[in-house]
């Protein structure tokens, strides 16, 4: 390979890849998404319609927003399992304050999001200050936040009435649901954060070599706390979108969402083995792939267990393809 061929991973890569393998590695997941789209469009009449595209965007928004935070966390070499419960907790708090305590919707939403941020802060502080593996800490907060959410739901459900909630699904600037816009804007902000800020760069440095980051005099622990807090904050925003989309908060909301988010990140090609390699826009593609598959199987009237098995299968194929494309990189 020519000496001056730049690489494509991480920030600081000045130009796009120049060789076919680099192009393939960079755009592999996008190609896979396009192939999936084409196959689905050809085999299902209603799949490639405008209204169905709108559906898919609405359906992926919650997972998509959560996956931004998960991307940042996993780039540092950590993991955040608590996001599913955190979505439930924040939406329960919002609904509870708004419906049962008569708080204005806006304020209730802010408090709900702050609660999710707090859970994220706890994840960050406990894992860094005591050096406990994030998988353990966030498993703990997964159970704790989920439990709290269910306690406050009191074995029941809460129906929302305020339009501040429902607007996210019903208002459609340019024909696209507001929640999809929010997701896209957050991805753009996430990209700016990861590629253009000190925090984002530190995420890559920590993931790439944590001891190295420490010896480069970076505030490793403080940055990690910020990243987990960010993941919590985004789970709170996702809780708002989830509440607005469903209109009813019940105890199954958010269940298992952490796995969908982690899957989206992994399908997007983030490296778990070495950390510090991955890009947030690829997570968006990963989210869309999972969303298209789920949508397609609903359209085809496939029963849910089949759908689940098929999603798993397609994801394995996607990840393998990406892996094979990448392996040819030097």
């Amino acid at each position, binding site marked *: 390979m020519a*000496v*001056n*061929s*730049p*690489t494509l*991973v*991480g*920030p*600081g*890569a*000045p*130009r796009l890849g120049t060789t076919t393998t680099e192009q393939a590695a960079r755009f592999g997941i996008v190609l896979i998404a396009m192939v999936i789209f084409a196959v689905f469009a050809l085999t299902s009449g209603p799949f490639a319609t405008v209204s169905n595209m709108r559906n898919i965007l609405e359906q992926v928004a919650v997972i998509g927003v959560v996956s931004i935070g998960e991307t940042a966390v996993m780039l540092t070499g950590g993991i955040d399992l608590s996001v599913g419960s955190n979505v439930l907790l924040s939406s329960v708090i919002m609904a509870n304050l708004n419906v049962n305590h008569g708080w204005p919707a806006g304020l209730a939403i802010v408090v709900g999001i702050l609660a999710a941020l707090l859970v994220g802060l706890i994840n960050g502080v406990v894992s860094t200050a005591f050096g406990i593996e994030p998988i353990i800490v966030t498993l703990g907060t997964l159970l704790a936040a989920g439990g709290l959410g269910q306690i406050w739901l009191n074995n029941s459900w809460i129906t929302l009435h305020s339009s501040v909630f429902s607007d996210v699904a019903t208002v459609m600037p340019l024909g696209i649901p507001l929640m999809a816009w929010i997701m896209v804007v957050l991805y753009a902000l996430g990209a*700016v954060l990861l*590629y*253009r*800020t*000190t925090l984002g*760069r*530190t995420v*890559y*440095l920590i993931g*790439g*070599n944590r*001891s*190295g*980051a*420490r*010896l*480069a*005099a*970076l*505030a490793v622990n403080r940055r990690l706390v910020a990243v987990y807090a960010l993941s919590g904050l985004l789970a709170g925003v996702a809780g708002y979108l989830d509440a607005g989309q469903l209109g009813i908060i019940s105890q199954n909301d958010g269940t298992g969402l952490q796995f969908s988010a982690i899957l989206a990140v992994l399908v997007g090609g983030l490296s778990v083995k*070495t950390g*510090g*390699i991955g890009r947030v826009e690829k997570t968006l593609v990963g989210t869309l792939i999972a969303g298209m598959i789920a949508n397609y199987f609903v359209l085809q009237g496939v029963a849910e267990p089949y759908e689940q098995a098929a999603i798993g299968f397609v994801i394995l194929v996607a990840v393998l393809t990406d892996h094979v494309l990448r392996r040819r990189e*030097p």
Partner: protein
Amino acid sequence: MTPRASDLSTLEVARPSELANPARLSMLGISKRFGGTPALDNVDFEVAAGEIHALVGQNGAGKSTLMKIVAGDYTPDSGVVMIDGNTVEIRNPRQGLDAGVGIVYQELSLLPNMTIAENISLGREETRLGVVARDAARKMAEKALALLGIDRLDINTRIGRLSLAQQQIVEIAKVMSYGPRVLVLDEPTAALSLDDTRKLFSALRHLRESGVGIVFVSHRYGEVLEICDRCTVLRNGKVVGRETVAGLTLERLVELTLGELAHRSYHAADPARPGSTGAKEGPGGTPLLRVEHLSVGNTVVDISFHVDRGEMVGLCGLLGSGQSEVARALYGDAPEVRGTVALDGQVVRLSSPRAAAAHGIAFITENRRDEGIFPDLAVVPNVTAASLRESWLAPLVPLLSPRQERARSRKVTDQVGVPRAVEGRRLRLLSGGTQQKVVVARWLAKGSRLLVCIEPTRGVDIGARADIYGQLRDLADKGTGIVIVTTDIEEALVLCDRVVVCFAGHVSAVVDPREATEESLFLAMQGLGQGSDENGR
């Protein structure tokens, strides 16, 4: 005695009479070239039964190549290896073990969460009905430890609870349990305290009685004279001495090691050398860095020294003498640090690398791969990692400007000689020399009062080495104080304005490179310095 062993009589060196034991290991006429460079040139090496035989020489003399041939890591270009008089061909470490060669490396291979018995029998567990037979493992462990004269160690103790010396002994027992004819110990005392060394030696003396031939590879000549029976000295891939240790002096050993280099001094003939021109004291005679009564755990005991502005001070010592710990302590990266550190006369608390960097201290690790570089990031983010804030779009706009970042990176990479063509490449794909230049560039980009580096040219090719020396010199000339930890005598004498020599956690001498010879520094590193202690003690 086998007839083959009579070949040994053709050697020029007389066999000492009291070691008329059969040869366990004979290596005859061993040569090995790497590319065009001969690493070993017709080397004869012989270890008798029941002796401890030292193999000494400077870095690059050929010791490790020779031992890698015994281990089966390398195949010699020519020559014969014999164990107990039988020619053997060792192609890989497993064959080495089968042929009767046991090797104990510096890096121990024990599993900390398993017991002594489990570790020793690891991979060879006898099973009864699919269950590990514990008593068989116990017998194996006890037998092996008995060879070393160890009977008070509970073999059900987990390795993690043992002292380093005990772990070393278990490692030796583990190797001995394979019944080797020859045992190679590679710098076995480098990580041990004096006390632990005593314990290890008493085990080795015991082991010697079993008739195994022991090869003791070491830089510590005091220990060689204490524990070994004979000694083979390598220099530039050739055997330059085969001596009986009884009657051998340390001076003679150093002379053999260094040869004509012994009296080489680097600066006497070169008064115009740029060195020390940059060295100046601050206002009121305050040095840039003053370290007083510094102790780190129990590896560094009460070390004091100073560094002036623009001065390059070497911290020199044999591996494990405490110099690396001093450097780490200066960068806030060592536990249990006591004593005071003052920068420009102000006492500072260096509680973390971040705190140290905030005081204007920079640090280059000896462990580049694990601590120095970000292997999957390109050159630019590697360079700017420690000074991200300076690539902000504007002083109060916390957004990185790629253009500014690249410009900042180029300014320093041009200076250290990293070609722009590779600036987008991942560090993983670059040579060790280029990687190290990137690390140097990172600290140039940040700017520091004091640069602390450990083995700055380890794993760096000769060309890059010269570049890095030049950079360090430049930095010093601009007034930065530099501390260089090195085990390389030549590096210390060529580069430094002053060399503080550590031995066993103390300062054993302070050497002026303009007056010192390799020999005098070498002796000081062995704890026999004639230079004066900085504090007049």
